[in-house]
């Protein structure tokens, strides 16, 4: 594949161009593993088990979802966590040998090795329903704009800045739509190009 990360342009988790952390290799504390696009390495359980410098640990990942969104640690009880390339984390429903050579392993959930970790649209759709914090519930027209990939003014949000879960009410319950970046009164949609839809 031409893209070293193995992501097609329409890939499920392309970063929106507005991503303040960009796609560039990360800062001085990150000594990344080689960027072999097929190699998945299982995350160490804790910092004491860490061999590869800069690699996030399972404990850190579970705590991050809990602290940032209130997603309970037991949500991940059946999943192993893996790093492919530089900081892209995947959740897999089983346990397989590490490292494993594959084109994909479960669901890409999180971009790490940058100042602000960024969850993926697909992770938030699958697991974000358990969130209790940093969930922005959008009105009908706002949700349509968000799914289209548009940025919008949203001064009424008084929660944290940064990556939030955008959600809306549909079919009788609140359902996550994707990941927004809230900055300076504006909600930016990070829905990847291949997932955007005109739902108006």
């Amino acid at each position, binding site marked *: *594949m031409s893209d070293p990360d193995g992501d*097609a342009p*329409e*890939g*499920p*988790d392309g970063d929106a161009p507005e991503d303040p952390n960009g796609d560039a290799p990360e800062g001085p504390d990150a000594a990344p593993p080689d960027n072999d696009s097929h190699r998945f390495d299982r995350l160490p359980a804790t910092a004491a088990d860490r061999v590869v410098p800069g690699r996030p640990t399972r404990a850190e990942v579970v705590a991050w979802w809990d602290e940032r969104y209130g997603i309970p640690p037991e949500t991940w009880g*059946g*999943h192993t966590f893996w790093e492919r390339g530089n900081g892209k984390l995947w*959740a*897999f*429903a*089983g*346990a*397989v*040998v590490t490292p*494993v*050579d*594959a*084109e*994909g*392993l*479960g*669901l*890409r959930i999180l971009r790490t090795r940058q100042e602000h970790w960024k969850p*993926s649209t*697909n992770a938030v*759709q*699958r697991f974000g329903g358990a969130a209790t914090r940093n969930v922005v519930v959008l009105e009908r027209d706002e949700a349509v704009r968000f*799914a289209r990939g548009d940025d919008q003014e949203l001064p009424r949000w008084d929660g944290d800045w940064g990556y939030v879960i955008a959600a809306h009410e*549909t*079919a*009788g*319950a609140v*359902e996550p*739509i994707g990941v927004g970046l809230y900055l300076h009164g504006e909600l930016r949609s990070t829905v990847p190009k*291949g*997932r955007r*839809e*005109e*739902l108006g």
Partner: protein
Amino acid sequence: MRPPQRYASLVDDFDAFRAACDRPLPSVVRVNTLKASVDRARRALDDAGVGYEAVEWHPGLFRLDERGPGTSWPYFHGWLHGQEEVSTLPALALDPQPGEVVWDACAAPGSKATQLSALMDDEGVVIGNDNNLGRLSALRHNAERLGITNLAVTNQDARNFSLKPFGDRGTDPERIEQFDRALVDAPCSCEGTIRKNPDAFEEWSLGHVEGVAGVQRGILRRAVDATRPGGTVVYSTCTFAPEENEAVLDHVLDRGDCEVVAWEPPAGFETDPGVTEWGEETYDPAVERAHRVYPHRNDTGGFFCAKLEVTA
């Protein structure tokens, strides 16, 4: 002789068969039960004003009044996946259980692999393989949109599929050495897709049928070899040619390490038995346990599906 006339001797009501082949296929979606219940998906379709009718023989399949589910909230949320009605059969026949290790030998673009994951409640491992790297990106995209976490994607020639990347012949306790179940939804001449690909008969050639049958035999042999004794292998195609169906089964049955077992599709879905004679050829009588699906029986595409048990 070319299709459809080629199969006049196999089909009871050939006029109805030919007429069905000329009709366009309804657009069908499957509810992704990993993300939404059938009831909630139905409510979302109602709220969105999308017209549909439920498929009688399979809860969670809806025939849409209009083409394409792509522009509705339930689709955006990954609650729905466009999948031809008849192509849900092989995963039902395979009947994978949560926690098992399952191989989908020709998995892209992923309708059946993602259905396997849903049937397993996203627990265990589905190894979704395809030899076509371009189609693999569609598989990954579909699996991620549906929120599936138990799918490992590989890019190998299924005929020589190796479990070495998963630790086979090693000592790691988490290695995978064989499958509990395997699905071979084989590349084929696609005669049964005539209702959505009107060129399917035009592009037909006996040379292609015979060539692809060699590939089919190779993949099915590998699936039987890589599946544990007592495990299940399902063989399916979307074509009518006995060379690609019963003849392929006959070939693996000759090796003596598997048998065709009885399996009934859900009530209300009508099939015809596999054929034991075709031209000069005769096949193992057990191939009658396979299912031929003709388009006029259930108003679907054409299909073939057989369930095998590995015995050694």
